[in-house]
């Protein structure tokens, strides 16, 4: 029994064929994605030297091509319903273009239409709470020339009214549960599910990706959603296959670095009180400015050119001219499919990746604030405490193919964080998605969860045990 699993990315279409009986990889391959004319061209090229794939039991795909699943979230208060809506959208594997709060203005509407989202997620108000803002925002959207489908996930008391506003405006409005039904209580699963449904029913077709259905069984989710699915299954395990428990996955891409934590994030110390909006157990954050190629210039900006240059000199144990670094950054931005070609380039890539891991972890984890009061010191936690998480898994081309993944991953450790109040994992095992299988296994998880866990346990290895060059 075989499974053919495809990841249609914006530059590459990656294919893998798995032997489900023997739990092993039969073949992996990739080719350029050509969404503009026909996704199937890239797909067929990727499958060129595969034999017998047609008779695979499962033929499933995920995709981040054609810009991924582009979303905009609209809520009321930035830290409350707007943030809840944003988390729901990220958890569904979307690419967040922007989040809006309070009343939308005509200028906001213009901006939204220029951003060309695939789906709009509209929240605002707790159940029975504020009505005016979501109704106002619905009217603004319904009265505009936007044709984006809208998911309504706000105050239940006016949900019907909001839906009517869209109906009357000739727009598509889809109703689901409120993302924040009570104050600070998060309820993002229903919205997440609705996004997935719309992705399957509308967006794939709108992007011309439904063509793959003539070759495959179906394109079932956005790639980041597949990674999140795999991560949560690996954490929980399935039936007799035990999971790893709470974990973090860091996915370093060309344009973004994604961090997924499957963990409660509850305070691990006594006497700490937790503040703010509830945290999702499965949480995904995306750093649009931290990436290895498209976003290399903004990554370098976030690191600081001088700091990166110093790190490079230390790594090379010798001086070099600053132009070498600058030229390489310019090069990889222009040639986004460039692969490090010599020793210096490999080292620069490694440093970029480590810093991307470091910064994206710092932004994902919570922070422990110390407040001095007449009572003495008081500790307030905002966000997730991941200090006790036992496993961090690295994935993404750069980490899978670099010869020192452990060094890259160690950027996530508590001891390497820029501030001591960041709640990053202290002593985790550093693991590597050695065959770049997380997204495909997220697909397999849909149909054969037990096997998906088995594959993950086989191919996710300690970062120290593997060394890129001899794989």
């Amino acid at each position: 029994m075989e499974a053919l699993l495809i990841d249609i990315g914006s530059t590459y279409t990656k294919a893998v064929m798995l032997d489900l009986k023997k739990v092993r990889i039969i073949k992996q391959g990739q080719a350029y994605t050509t969404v503009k004319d026909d996704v199937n061209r890239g797909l067929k090229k990727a499958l060129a030297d595969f034999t017998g794939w047609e008779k695979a039991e499962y033929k499933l795909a995920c995709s981040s091509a054609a810009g991924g699943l582009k979303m905009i979230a609209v809520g009321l208060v930035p830290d409350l319903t707007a943030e809840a809506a944003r988390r729901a959208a990220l958890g569904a594997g979307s690419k967040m273009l922007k989040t809006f709060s309070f009343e939308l203005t005509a200028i906001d509407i213009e901006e939204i239409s220029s951003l060309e989202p695939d789906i709009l997620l509209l929240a605002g108000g707790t159940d029975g709470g504020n009505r005016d803002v979501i109704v106002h925002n619905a009217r603004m959207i319904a009265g505009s020339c936007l044709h984006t489908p809208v998911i309504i996930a706000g105050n239940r008391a006016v949900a019907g009214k909001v839906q009517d506003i869209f109906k009357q405006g000739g727009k598509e409005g889809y109703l689901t549960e409120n993302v924040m039904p009570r104050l600070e209580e998060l309820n993002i699963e229903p919205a997440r599910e609705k996004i997935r449904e719309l992705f399957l029913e509308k967006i794939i077709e709108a992007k011309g990706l439904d063509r793959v259905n003539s070759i495959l069984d179906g394109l079932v989710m956005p790639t980041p959603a597949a990674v999140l699915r795999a991560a949560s299954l690996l954490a929980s395990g399935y039936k007799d296959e035990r999971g790893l428990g709470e974990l973090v996955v860091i996915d370093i891409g060309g344009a973004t670095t994604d961090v997924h934590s499957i963990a409660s994030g509850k305070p691990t110390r006594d006497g700490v009180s937790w503040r703010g909006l509830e945290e999702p157990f499965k949480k995904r954050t995306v750093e649009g400015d931290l990436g290895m190629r498209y976003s290399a210039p903004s990554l370098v900006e976030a690191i600081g050119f001088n700091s990166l240059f110093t790190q490079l000199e230390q790594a090379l144990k010798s001086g070099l001219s600053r132009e070498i670094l600058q030229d390489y950054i310019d090069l990889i931005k222009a040639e986004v499919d460039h692969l490090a070609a010599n020793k210096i380039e490999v080292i620069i890539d490694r440093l970029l990746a480590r810093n991307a891991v470091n910064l994206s972890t710092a932004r994902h984890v919570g922070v422990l604030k110390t407040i001095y009061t007449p009572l003495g010191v008081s500790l307030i936690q905002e966000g997730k405490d991941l200090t006790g998480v036992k496993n961090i898994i690295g994935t993404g081309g750069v980490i899978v193919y670099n010869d020192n993944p452990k060094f890259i991953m160690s950027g996530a450790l508590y001891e390497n964080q820029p501030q001591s109040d960041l709640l990053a994992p202290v002593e985790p095992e550093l693991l590597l998605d050695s065959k770049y299988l997380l997204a495909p296994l997220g697909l397999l998880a849909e149909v054969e969860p037990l096997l998906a866990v088995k594959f993950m346990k086989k191919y996710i290895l300690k970062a120290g045990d593997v060394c890129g060059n001899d794989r």
Partner: protein
Amino acid sequence: MDKTTVVLGVIGADVHAVGNRILEYSLKQAGLNVINIGVMSSQNDFINAALETGADAIWVSSLYGHGEMDCRGLREKCLEAGIGDILLYAGGNLVIGKRDWPYVEELFRGMGYDRAYPPGTLPETAIIDLEKDIYKKGDKNWRPC
């Protein structure tokens, strides 16, 4: 005519109960409807009580020195809960350390409180302010007795 309703309570992990009792008594004496949620009340407790009772104002007390931290974000939550324009007053011991009062008052105003009171404020002072504020809003006539 509806009586003006005030939700009253001591926020956070604060147990100082004496002032709270006095405030309740004074507000009742002034003819107001008082919903006293007592000591150790969370922001959500205040908002839920205000929602259920259709209150006109929330009076938050903080005596033990965590005032700034405990009170922050209440206005934003009121907004989500649909009572964004409710009157918010804070009082007790809001001064922390050596900060002078005008600074603290500004801080609370910035956090969305309509009024903040220094230690030792008499309940009557604030009751008169409430009268003015409600009159200004004009959504209800002030009828103390």
